[in-house]
């Protein structure tokens, strides 16, 4: 990279809570956020655990000073706004008065969480009713525009949807726009709310675990879905220093590739994942031995974990690098996952701790390495974070100590 890109502010909401302190507290105490959903109105609520955010829609609206009830805001947007509220409260908002910044959001199913409960009204002969407020909320850009409008921003806006790697891609786009001189700063992240659409979609693929998911375990069955949102402020190191900002971490490398193997499954030997991680290292100017902790994609699906595990084993063969999946804490938050785990990676550097892979008991037969299962004190300078998605979409990000 030319000049270093750094992260100077963050905001997050997930099943672990709201804000940095609640999240790092939960990570350290090994407190997972999984439960049978209370807010998601699915007939399968008693069957599956999910990483559901504690707050109801009305409680989220109250945090934002918005009217409760059918206010036209989907849960997706509410989660995004609450995460952004934290970022904005930690930032000199004077930075965003001109339009020299980008808002890069990511999302996989837009306002489906609301639309799925109203769709029969949408397509009925009814022309009046509260559903009208939600009629333009299905697409992915809805949350992006509401962020801009709520905070009265006029940024360059972009929304990305590359399945489970979506918000990891947001960070890459933001960094590239800054490097290319298109904007000075970028707010990057993603959001997704639990929906019956995604729960039933993944369940139709038979890869949702009813119990808490078990990444990298031989007896894993599938993923747990989660919800949340996270955003990071990116800028050049010199700009951050010039304004006296706290530098949380350096965004030192990234890579976006495609498996070109199968519409939903990764290449079984992890070739795609391996190449993605190698290219990210190359971009960061680092060797694999420089990586101290890997926050794996680790969804606990049969396919992902064996492919990703083999790739990690192949690349980090010379050194037993600490790795774990934090999906058992939050569930798989889809478009938010890349940004949420970017924060987990940054906190790993700040706290000098590798986060535990909960629910791991038995190694996968094909693998000779096992994830970290306790909070592990480590000298951490560089963290690699993986996000792999449907459509063969692979992203690796590298964060380094400021």
């Amino acid at each position, binding site marked *: 990279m030319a000049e270093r890109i750094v992260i100077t502010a963050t905001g997050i909401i997930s099943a672990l809570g709201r804000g940095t302190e609640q999240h790092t507290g939960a990570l350290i105490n090994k407190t997972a956020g999984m439960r049978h959903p209370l807010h998601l109105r699915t*007939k*399968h609520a008693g069957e599956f655990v999910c990483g559901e955010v504690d707050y109801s829609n009305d409680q989220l609206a109250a945090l934002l000073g918005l009217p409760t009830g059918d206010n036209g805001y989907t849960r997706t947007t509410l989660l995004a706004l609450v995460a952004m509220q934290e970022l904005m409260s930690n930032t000199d908002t004077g930075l965003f008065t001109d339009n020299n910044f980008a808002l890069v959001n990511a*999302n*996989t199913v837009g306002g*489906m969480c609301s*639309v*799925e409960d109203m*769709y*029969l009204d*949408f*397509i009925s002969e009814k*022309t009046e009713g509260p559903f*009208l407020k939600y*009629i*333009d909320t*299905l*697409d*992915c*850009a809805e949350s*992006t*525009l509401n962020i*801009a*409008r709520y905070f009265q921003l*006029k940024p360059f*806006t*972009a*929304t*990305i*949807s*590359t*399945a489970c790697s979506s918000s990891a891609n947001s960070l890459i*786009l933001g960094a*590239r*726009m800054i490097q*290319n*001189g*298109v904007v000075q700063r970028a707010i990057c992240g993603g959001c997704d709310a639990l929906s*019956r*659409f995604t729960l*039933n*979609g*993944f*369940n*139709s*693929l038979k890869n949702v675990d009813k119990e808490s998911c078990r990444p990298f375990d031989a007896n894993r069955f599938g993923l747990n879905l989660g919800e949340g949102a996270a955003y990071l402020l990116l800028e050049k190191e010199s700009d951050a220093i010039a304004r006296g900002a706290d530098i949380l971490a350096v965004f030192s490398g990234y890579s*976006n*590739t*495609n*498996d*070109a*193997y*199968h*519409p939903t499954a990764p290449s079984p030997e992890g070739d*795609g994942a391996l*190449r993605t991680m190698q290219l990210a290292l190359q971009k960061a100017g680092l060797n694999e031995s420089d990586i101290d902790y890997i926050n794996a994609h680790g969804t606990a699906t049969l396919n992902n974990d064996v492919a990703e595990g083999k790739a990690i084993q192949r690349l980090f063969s010379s050194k037993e690098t600490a790795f774990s999946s934090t999906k058992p804490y939050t569930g798989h938050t889809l478009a938010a996952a890349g940004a949420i785990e970017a924060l987990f990676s940054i906190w790993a550097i700040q706290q000098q701790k590798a986060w535990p892979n909960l629910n791991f008991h038995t190694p996968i037969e094909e693998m000779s390495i096992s994830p970290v299962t306790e909070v592990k004190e480590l000298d951490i300078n560089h963290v690699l974070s993986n996000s792999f*998605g*449907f*459509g*063969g*979409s692979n992203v690796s990000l590298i964060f380094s100590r400021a």
Partner: protein
Amino acid sequence: MMQPVYISSASVISPQQHFEDVGFLADVHDIAEGMLYVREPNYRGYINPVAIRRMSKLLKMGISCGMSALQRAGIEKPDAIITGTGRGSMVDTEQFLLNMIEMDEEALTPTSFIQSTYNSINGWLALQTKCTGYNQTYVNRGTSFELALFDAQMLLNEAEQEMHVLAGCFDEITPDYIKVKSKIGYWKQPIPANTDLLKHSNTPGTIAGEGSAFFTLTNKKENALCSLQAIATMQDAEPAEVMAAINPLLNKHGLALDDIDLLLCGMNGDSRQMEVYNQLSQSANGHTTIAAFKHLCGEYDTSSGFATWIATEIFKAGEIPDTLVIKKGSHKGIQNILLVNHYILNSHSIVLLQSVQ
């Protein structure tokens, strides 16, 4: 400032013509229902024959259009694949959603769920071309295609070697989509024939359309159809802000509005959204031809893909089909084309294309 990049091939599927048709808007189709569905090409030959049987229409549109653009450029494997779509596969989304509601969340099959994923066409294009390079999907409503073009330009600016990017867009309409959006005044009533759309610009509403357009872009000037100079996108901008953005963008490229030979405008017949185009028409002097395109493709999130295809055809032909022209200008050749578009949900975009002659 980003350097220009070059468009080396273009392919389209539209309500007027598709990539297997010869000619350029030779037969203009009159469609009276306010739903401008695409004319579908024979998809076989562009798509894996086993996979095609389960594919929905948008997947077939996007994959075949992308493969056709690559064929035209003589590229087997691009270095990157970047797309934009406002809504992805509406058919698959509606199908999985309705099945889920009707079957009460039981016994669902995954095909439509997988295909409703916005990047599924990207995945298929990568799979078919064995392209393991950069892969990205933008879903930013009315500027989704522009973001794909913008990313392609940035990626080519970053490249140190010759590079070929496949960039494109796809969106579709369904009867339910039309019905849903009719409840918030999207569509014109009564419905005019598409070719008469712009005669009704004094009333609210537009007509719906769909399409796909794909392009190969490269950092190499040889054999290019045209260059892509600059792209700007705006959300929630007042007409005055859009107007204020145009001159600086042109000035940066050593141009003024008077240097634009063709102003290709995204007016969609909706009186509520005419202000920018009215101001633009007044600002342009006699040199510039003012033209429109949405009476041919209808309104949809990525209609600017269709407009960009039109621009590449005009550079090739050296003339502007009468069906596009609103006001003829006195310009001799076609050196500069400025595409100014908007989408119903209050976004605007500006794209500057230049001849390589």
